């Protein structure tokens, strides 16, 4: 269980680090990156929840949630980056 806890706590730290840079960083890219780090932190927590001891099969539900969450996160990131790029293009014009 200790190992799962360490993963989970790392996830918590990652999450808040991400939130922090989303709130504080000047660059939009850094903010988007921060969101991704936050997301990764949450997924890490989910994965650590799946672990149920060495002898037990893992809980498949958190794994599935992570997969779904990942796809959602990537989609959102892609949109944010596209917007960011378009805004920069407009500045160049």
């Amino acid at each position, binding site marked *: 269980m200790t190992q799962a806890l360490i993963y989970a706590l790392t996830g918590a730290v990652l999450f808040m680090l991400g939130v922090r840079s989303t709130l504080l960083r000047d660059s939009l890219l850094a*903010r988007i990156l921060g969101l991704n780090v*936050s997301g990764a932190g949450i997924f890490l927590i989910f994965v650590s*929840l799946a672990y149920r001891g060495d002898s037990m099969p893992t809980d498949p539900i958190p794994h599935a949630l992570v997969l779904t969450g990942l796809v*959602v996160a990537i989609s959102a990131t892609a*949109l944010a980056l596209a*917007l960011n790029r378009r805004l920069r293009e407009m500045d160049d014009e």
Partner: protein
Amino acid sequence: MNNLLIWPVALPLLSALLALLWPRRSTWIGVAGTGLSLSAVLLVSRQVVESGSIELALGGWAPGLGIALRVDGLSLLMLLMSSLVAMAVAVYSSVYFSDSERRGEFWVLWLLLITALHALFLSGDLFNLYVTLELLGLSAVVLACLGGSRASLQAALRYLVLGLLGSLAFLMGVALIYAGYGTLDMAALGDAIEAGPTAWVALSLMTGGLLIKSALFPLHFWLPPAHANAPAPVSAVLSALVVKAALYLILRLWLELFDGVVTQASAMIIGVLGAVAVLWGSWAALQAQRLKLMAAYSTVAQLGYLFLFLPLLAAIPEGEGRDLALGALVLLALTHGFAKSAFFLAAGVIMQRAGHDRIAELGGTARALPVTAFTIALAGVALIGLPPSGSFLAKWQLLSTVFVTGQWLWLPVIAVGTLLAGAYIFRLLGHAFAPGEGVGPSLSVGREEIPAVLLALIATLLLGFWAAEVWELVPISAYAGGEA
């Protein structure tokens, strides 16, 4: 027969796919798809009125392992509001976007937005709610971009980043809930959750995330630019429906899942923020130089009113008294939904005819566009909270709850907010009814003016005189703790 519940989600989704495949017919598909979704919601409502709340276990799996869709009085009212507003806005958009090269994308995303809203109101599973929140947020952002201007893209990007932050906070809360209670099904959680660190931390994370999305002061700053710069029909649904979705979730969490966990102190904090939102939003609306910006600030203020209810609800024990207050909250949210969407559509008509929406130059609007001016006046009546609108009844009950609970603090807030709302609405009407040439020559009543006036009539007459139905529906609960 419970498969009925999937149709409000499946129909708009199916229509979205069709609109994507046949962009030439997208307008037709969009309006028809919205209409079909509305009829699905009407069928659902008939069944709820007849036999109470409904549950659909998707895939036939027991809720918990699988995902359940549920509808009760609260979600039904939200569904009805969103599908009715959506119908009117769709008819309006069929004119608004008729010449736009973006109309193909508009209709697909429009239908996806309806899908997301309906899915959110129906969902009975926390993680599924996260997915619907993201779908709602992304489709709303993309719709807000359709204007294409730099200001709108920038506002949309900020909206997206903050929205994502909000959803992630929500998801973190979901993770902690799953860690602590081992299920994501909301009915089961309603029974299982009890006061403790897990509940507190999860609730604050989820609430915090949703507060960003519902633009409660001081997390509101993304809303005015995003709502003011989007195309008019999009602003209408953003202000009327999308922010309400987050509010709906907060209500679900506070009143059903975390009932008993919520402390009066935390509710007071939210109430105070709501109070500041009322005052600040109304003041900013009074200062606004542009019609749509004024409407957007007014949304900030109106959302503040809705949050004023939280400390009041927390102070009343579950039962008839609380249902009374909850009904008033819902009625206020519904009235604002209809009135604000009507307002934005009318603003869109003015912008298209006049080429601008500077309030000081709107003289002559009433003569050139009498129906639209009438719409703004009716919607304004509802926004101020004057009779015979639904918000008058809601404010009456809000004041009544203030007296019953003895939370006098809110009395001056409500009073000043009402007067400020009167000031900004009548400032606008003064300009609109003044003589002038700001809007150009008189034109006949357009197809796009009718949906707006209908929405405004719903807000001011229907919800005023038939509001008793709201209070009848609200107590129907699918999550009613022990008895369920």
